[in-house]
């Protein structure tokens, strides 16, 4: 050990450290190049995730298991106060497990939100569930159709369905948010795509691809993007895309449900300042829904899809007929016949409608009640325009009777929750629709007969 060596050694150390630093940079870059879904996930992960996945070691699976057990037990007991944190940890331990993300989001949107008395608080938790899946879960498993399915489910069932007592609040808030991008019933894609701020916000804040949405509008739409069903359809479609050639039956089911729902109530009359939130049928998408059903049936082969399809066409026949769209109703009837020969047991469209409409009305749920009521009002206005006052009155009477019988069967507290639109609003919308649909001359006749605003 000479004197010279003594000072040389630290120098060597420094040089070696510099070399190691250079190698480190190269390795980090290499890992980056190895693509997402590998080391990249942990590279972007917050320290907690990085630490738990590596430092927790072999305990990781076990700890996740134990936390999962605790979470399941708490959920069974209906105790949700701790679930958010538990699920947070489980997702940190198993960030790429879609089951956990789904469970976590479900808890936020369904269980925790239900504990809040205030609608605003409830909406915050529903949104948190959506954001969790969309903003965090999808980062870890961008290619897992299950994640898209869960997201789509929340839009379709939590926000879209009338089960939650604050569901109208959710729908209002979502429509308000979306009105920034889509002020009317139809999206102005050229304008949105041209505006960097709008399309950028969609991409950044909502993780939605405007180009994809536009394509979707032309393939399956047009959609009213202020409605949750459109978003349910969007995420289901993204899930199908992520599934690739394997396809995803679950996503397709949701897509079809969302499309059916869009057919039933896919157009929104939204005047927040007056508190008007009226959904009405979007009958233009009928052929596209049929196509979607056929596409899905071709992909998945023998499933329960044909049953759902039959149900849809059956219902579409009735609704289209109620709204006076004879040709489309006939087309739907023909499809139904071709699909299930002999099942209808009737000679033609007229007979089918007359046999089935009563049963349909009797079993109608909230959304169908609104649809049929509007349909009968619409029919009435058409008769009015044609000058047949008796038939017009009968249709009007039919609409009101049907509405009343539905309303009177419900206990008041569940009516509150259903938040049915005002009957007048429904009638007014039917009037507006009739004015648009009728040729100018007949429209004028209707105006004369009914007076402005549909008042007789």
């Amino acid at each position, binding site marked *: 050990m000479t004197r010279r060596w003594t000072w040389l050694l630290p120098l060597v*150390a420094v040089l070696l*450290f510099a070399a190691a630093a250079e190698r480190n940079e190269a390795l980090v870059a290499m890992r980056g190049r190895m693509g997402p*879904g590998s*080391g990249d996930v942990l*590279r972007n992960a917050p320290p907690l995730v990085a*630490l738990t996945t*590596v430092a927790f*070691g072999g305990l990781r699976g076990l700890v996740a298991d134990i936390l999962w057990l605790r979470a399941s037990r708490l959920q069974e007991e209906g105790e949700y106060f701790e679930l958010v944190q538990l699920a947070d940890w489980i997702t940190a331990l*198993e960030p790429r497990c879609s089951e956990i993300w789904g469970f976590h989001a479900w808890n936020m949107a369904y269980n925790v939100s239900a504990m809040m008395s205030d609608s605003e608080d409830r909406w915050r938790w529903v949104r948190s569930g959506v954001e969790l899946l969309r903003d965090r879960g999808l980062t870890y498993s961008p290619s897992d159709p299950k994640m898209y399915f869960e997201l789509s489910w929340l839009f379709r069932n939590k926000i879209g369905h009338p089960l939650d007592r604050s569901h109208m609040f959710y729908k209002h808030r979502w429509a308000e948010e979306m009105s920034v991008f889509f002020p009317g019933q139809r999206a102005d894609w050229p304008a949105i795509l041209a505006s960097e701020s709008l399309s950028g916000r969609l991409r950044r804040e909502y993780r939605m691809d405007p180009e994809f949405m536009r394509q979707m509008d032309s393939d399956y739409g047009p959609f009213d993007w202020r409605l949750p069903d459109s978003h349910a359809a969007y995420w289901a479609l993204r899930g199908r895309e992520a599934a690739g050639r394997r396809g995803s039956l679950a996503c397709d089911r949701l897509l079809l449900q969302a499309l059916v729902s869009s057919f039933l109530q896919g157009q929104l009359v939204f005047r927040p300042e007056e508190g008007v939130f009226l959904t009405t049928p979007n009958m233009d998408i009928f052929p596209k829904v049929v196509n979607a059903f056929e596409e899905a049936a071709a992909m998945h082969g023998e499933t329960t899809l044909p049953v759902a399809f039959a149900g849809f066409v059956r219902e579409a026949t009735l609704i289209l007929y109620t709204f006076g769209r004879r040709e489309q109703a006939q087309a739907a009837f023909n499809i139904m016949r071709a699909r299930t020969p002999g099942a209808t047991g009737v000679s033609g469209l007229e007979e089918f409608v007359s046999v089935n409409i009563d049963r349909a009305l009797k079993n109608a749920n909230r959304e169908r009640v609104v649809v049929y009521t509007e349909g009968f009002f619409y029919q009435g206005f058409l008769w009015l325009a044609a000058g047949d006052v008796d038939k017009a009155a009968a249709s009007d009477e039919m609409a009101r009777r049907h509405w009343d019988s539905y309303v009177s069967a419900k206990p008041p507290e569940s009516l509150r929750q259903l938040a049915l639109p005002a009957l007048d609003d429904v009638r007014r919308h039917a009037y507006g629709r009739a004015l648009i649909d009728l040729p100018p001359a007949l429209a004028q006749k209707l105006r004369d007969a009914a007076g402005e605003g549909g008042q007789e």
Partner: protein
Amino acid sequence: MLRFRQFTALAALAAGESLRQPIFLLLSLTCVAWMAALPVVLMHKFGEDGKLVREGALALHFVFGILVTGHAASWSLAREMRGGTAAAVLTKPVGRDMFYLAKYAGIVSVAVAFSVCAALATLLSERVSERFVADPVLGGYVTDWNTARMVFSGIIVSLVVAGVLNYRWRFPFQSSGFGLLAGMLLLTFIVRGQFDIHGRLSPMLWAYDWRIVPASLLITLALAVFAAIALALSTRFPAAPTVAACCGVLLVGLVSDYVFGTAASRSFAAATLHRVLPNWQNFWMADALADGGVIPGWYLLEAATYAGVYSAAVLALGLTFFRRSDVG
């Protein structure tokens, strides 16, 4: 030549000392048994079969490897420096550099021995893990119970035989136990390599997930780097603070990419730290195996270079400390 002999003698001594520690056998046994138990114990596999077992086993390899090397490094050097053993050796014509480097070589060989065991156990336990097989003859979920049985019996047999060897021929229990454990794992590995996972004989099939091998190799490299750090720290601190400091280095190195890597472009300090701290993420590639991924050979080569250069740097630093530290 003399220097080489001295070096090997010292390194063998350091390795032998560590191998004879009861805690070494305990840690190895627990690690292997835990790995073997992973596919049996875990219930919620959250969708992906084998992945959880694979990652769990690799993480066990890492964590127990750190315990083994950390214990070996801190206890051997720190204790010998205070207990006077180091002084006794250094008064012989042995340079401090030689002594230090030989200690490192000894500890690394212990880490390698441990890693061989751990890698074999990882391969076997991944094989045991339940998986869905769409086979025309045997469909459905298949668990390779025969392999599980062989691994568990291997653990018990190695302990019993080590006991007999110790009783009859006074072989040291700990090191012979470890040797037998490794042997039994190797035997299981070779025998089970001749069967498919349904237990049907098919010679030279070697139905193992070979992608695990490079991942295990990377962890072994990480252990080598860790040994250098622990050794450098133990030139300055007694055993307990060394362990604490090692934990610190481990944690900081794990989050280095996230904390310092992301801030590297904005802050010079962060960039420097990101470069200088050992980046364990470079050696943790279990995630790369998800979805059928593989760790390419060139990555392994690059990582080995990094581990070599980094270890050398830490060793040079540690040697600087060791030259100036008081011994005895």
